[in-house]
C-alpha cells in the first residue's frame, strides 16, 4: 500500500482503445485511502472499462495505474491480492450455496481452513445472510445476491474494494440495504471503496468524492458538495413557459443573481444566487412580455445539475444517447 501520499489508487493518463473506439481517454485521478470514491456516468461512458483496467481484467492501451501500491501491468498478482472485486455481472455460482461460494473463493486466495471457519460465518452475518448460508444461491432474491457478492469479495480481507454498479436492477429497498452495507464497511473495516454508478442519488449519498466520466473522459472530480458549489448559482429555478420570445433566455440571464440559463426538453434551468428572488423577478418579466408561466420550482443544486453543467447534457439524455448508439445497427 502506498502510504506515502495516502493514495490507495493512482491512475495516470490511463487509456483503452478498442480498434478505432477510445473507451477511456487518458484519464488521471487518485483515490485516497479510506474513502468511498465514485465514478459517475451514463452507460457506455467508460466506467466499467476503467474498473476492469484497475482490477487487471483488461490491459490498458497506455498510461499507468497503481492499485494498493502495485502496478496493474507489471505486478498484476500483487493487485489481485490487495483488492476485492464485485463485477457488474453477478459472478457467484447459482448452483452452489452461499457458504460454498465463499469457501471456494477463499481457497483461491489461499486462506487456511481455520481462517475460512472464522471469516465466512462472520462475513455472512455482516451481510445478513447467516440463515441463508446453506441455501443455493440460485434461490436468492435480487437483493440477496449483491450482498453475497460483497461478502465474497471481502473474504480475503482486501484493502480496496471495487464495486461495479452494485445496485443496478435492484428495487429501492434492496438498494438502500446495499448502501447501508457499503457505509458500514467503510466505517468498520476502514476499506477504500471505488464504485461506479449511473445513479445520482447513489453517488450523492455514498461517495466522499465523485469523478464524472463521460465519453471516456474525466469531466470533473471533487466532493459532492464542492461539485454542487462549483455550479454557478446556489439554487436552480426550473420553469416552463408558453410562447417565450426569441431572446427570452438572454432576458432571463440579465435578472439579478442569475448566472446561467440552459434549456432542456422544454424546461428552462436558471442558476441563481437566490431562487425565491429570481422567481419574483421572473414572474414580473413574464407579465411584462406577456409570456405564460406554466410551472416554476426552486431547488438546491443537485448532481444532475452538476452533470449538466460539466457535460452539457443531462445524465438520462446521455444514457439514451448511449442506448441509441448501441442499437444503431438495428436501424441500418
Amino acid at each position: 500500500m502506498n502510504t506515502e501520499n495516502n493514495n490507495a489508487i493512482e491512475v495516470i493518463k490511463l487509456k483503452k482503445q478498442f480498434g478505432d473506439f477510445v473507451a477511456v481517454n487518458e484519464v488521471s485521478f487518485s483515490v485516497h485511502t479510506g474513502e468511498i470514491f465514485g465514478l459517475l456516468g451514463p452507460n457506455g461512458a467508460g466506467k466499467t472499462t476503467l474498473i476492469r483496467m484497475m482490477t487487471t481484467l483488461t490491459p490498458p492501451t497506455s498510461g499507468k495505474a497503481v492499485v494498493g501500491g502495485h502496478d496493474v501491468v507489471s505486478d498484476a498478482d500483487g493487485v489481485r491480492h490487495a483488492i476485492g472485486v464485485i463485477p457488474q455481472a453477478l459472478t457467484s455460482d447459482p448452483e452452489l450455496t452461499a457458504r460454498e461460494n465463499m469457501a471456494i473463493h477463499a481457497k483461491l486466495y489461499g486462506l487456511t481452513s481455520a481462517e475460512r471457519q472464522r471469516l465466512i460465518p462472520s462475513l455472512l452475518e455482516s451481510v445478513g445472510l447467516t440463515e441463508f448460508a446453506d441455501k443455493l444461491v440460485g434461490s436468492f432474491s435480487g437483493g440477496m445476491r449483491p450482498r453475497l457478492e460483497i461478502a465474497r469479495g471481502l473474504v480475503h480481507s482486501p484493502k480496496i474494494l471495487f464495486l461495479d454498479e452494485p445496485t443496478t436492477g435492484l428495487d429501492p429497498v434492496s438498494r438502500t440495504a446495499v448502501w447501508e452495507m457499503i457505509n458500514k464497511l467503510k466505517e468498520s473495516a476502514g476499506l477504500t471503496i471505488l464504485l461506479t454508478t449511473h445513479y445520482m442519488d447513489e453517488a450523492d449519498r455514498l461517495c466522499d468524492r465523485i469523478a464524472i466520466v463521460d465519453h471516456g473522459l474525466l469531466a470533473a472530480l471533487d466532493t459532492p458538495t464542492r461539485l454542487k458549489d462549483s455550479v454557478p448559482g446556489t439554487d436552480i429555478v426550473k420553469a416552463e413557459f408558453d410562447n417565450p420570445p426569441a431572446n427570452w433566455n438572454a432576458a432571463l440571464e440579465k435578472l439579478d443573481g442569475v448566472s446561467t440559463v440552459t434549456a432542456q426538453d422544454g424546461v428552462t434551468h436558471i442558476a441563481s444566487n437566490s431562487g425565491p428572488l429570481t422567481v419574483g423577478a421572473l414572474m414580473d418579466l413574464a407579465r411584462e412580455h406577456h409570456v405564460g408561466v406554466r410551472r416554476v420550482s426552486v431547488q438546491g443544486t443537485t448532481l444532475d445539475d452538476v452533470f449538466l453543467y460539466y457535460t452539457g447534457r443531462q445524465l438520462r439524455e446521455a444514457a439514451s444517447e448511449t442506448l441509441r448508439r448501441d442499437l444503431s445497427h438495428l436501424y441500418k
Partner: protein
Amino acid sequence: MKFQRIFAIIERDMRKFFRSPALMMSSMIFPLMQLIVLGYAFGGKIKGIKIAVVDEDRSAASRDVRQRFDAIVAGPQTMKIEDYNSLSDAETDLRTGFVRAVVYIPVDFSRRMEEGNRPRIAFIEDNTDNFVTSELLTRMQSLVQDINQGLNPFQPGQRLAVAAPRLNPLVDLQIVEVYPYIEYIKYLLSGSIAMSIFIVAMIGGGITFIDDKSRGLHEGYLVTPIKKSELILGLIFSGAFKGLMAGTTITLIGGLIAGISRLWDPVRLVYLGMVLTTTSVAMLSFMFLLMVRVSDPLVPRAIFGVLNTLLYFPSGAIYPIEGFPVWLRWISYIDPFTYAVHGLKALLLKDAGFQAIYSDVLILIGFSVVLVGLSVAFFRRQI
C-alpha cells in the same frame, strides 16, 4: 502453482455436477442406447432371406440341390425358399424386392453332370445390400463346395465348410480362431465407453464451460490470484473425473449387457482404469483447447454433432481402420478416440495385459500434455 486453487476449481465443478444428475444420466443414456440398439441390430445372424428357386431340370440331381437349400432352411435358417416355375417371374420378383436372390437350375443341369461337362447353377442376386449379399454368397459357395466334394446335405448343428475333401487337395487350410466368437455388441462396447467420456467432455468441458463464461462466472475467478494453468488444470481434472465416472459406469453396465467374461477381474479393472483415466484427461484437454477462445454458448452446441462424427467413426469403434481411405486414416491417427478404442478392445475382447495397452496409454498421456500446454498458451486471462 498452488494445488489448493486447482482443488478449489475441482471442488466447485464436482459440487455442481452432483447437484445436476441430468448430466451424468445424459452422458450415459446415449452410449448405452447406442450399444444396445446398434449392438443387437448389427450383431445378429441374418435369417429368413427370401430366395426364389427355379428348377427347370426337375431331375434327381436338381432335387439334390433343392434338398441342400431345404437343409439350410431347417438349419441356420439363413434363407426362405420360394419355388418358381419361370425364370422371368422370379426375376420380376427380384427386381420388385419380393425375393433377394434367384437360384436357377437350367434344363441341362443333370445332363452336364452326367457328362462331367461343368454343370451350372445360376445365382442372380440383388446386390444392393452388402450384408445380405455377403451372407448369401458364403452360403452358396459352401453349398457348391459341398456338392463338388460329394458331401451330404447340411445337417442342423453341423459346421459349414468342413475341410474334408474327397480328393487330396494341393493346400489344406486350417483355420484357428484365437478368441471365441465376438458378437457385434461386444465389438461396439469399447466405442460406447469412449462415447460416454466424449459426451461428458462435450457437456462438462464444452457447454458448461462456455455457459459459465457467458454468465460472467469466470470473471469472478479471474479477479483472484488464480493462474491460467491452475484454472485450466482444475477444469480439465474435474471434467476428467466426471468422464472417468461415466466411462466406468458404461464399462460395467455395458460389459454386463454385452456379456464380457471375467468382467470383475481386478487386474483387468486396474488396466481399464488406466485407459479410462488417460482417455478422460485427453478428451477433456482436447475439448478445452477447442473451446479456449470460444465465448458464444451456441458454438459448442452447434459443433457437437460434427465432433461426434469426426471423432467416433474414424476411431475404429464400429468398423476397422484398415478399411478406411488414406485421408480418413490420418484423422484416426490424431483422434484420441482411436487409442481409447484400441486399448479398451484389447482389454475387453482379448483380455490382454499391460503390454497391449501401454502404447495407447502413453499416446493419450502425450496427447494430454501437448493439449494442456496449448490450452494454457491460448487461454486469455484478461477480458
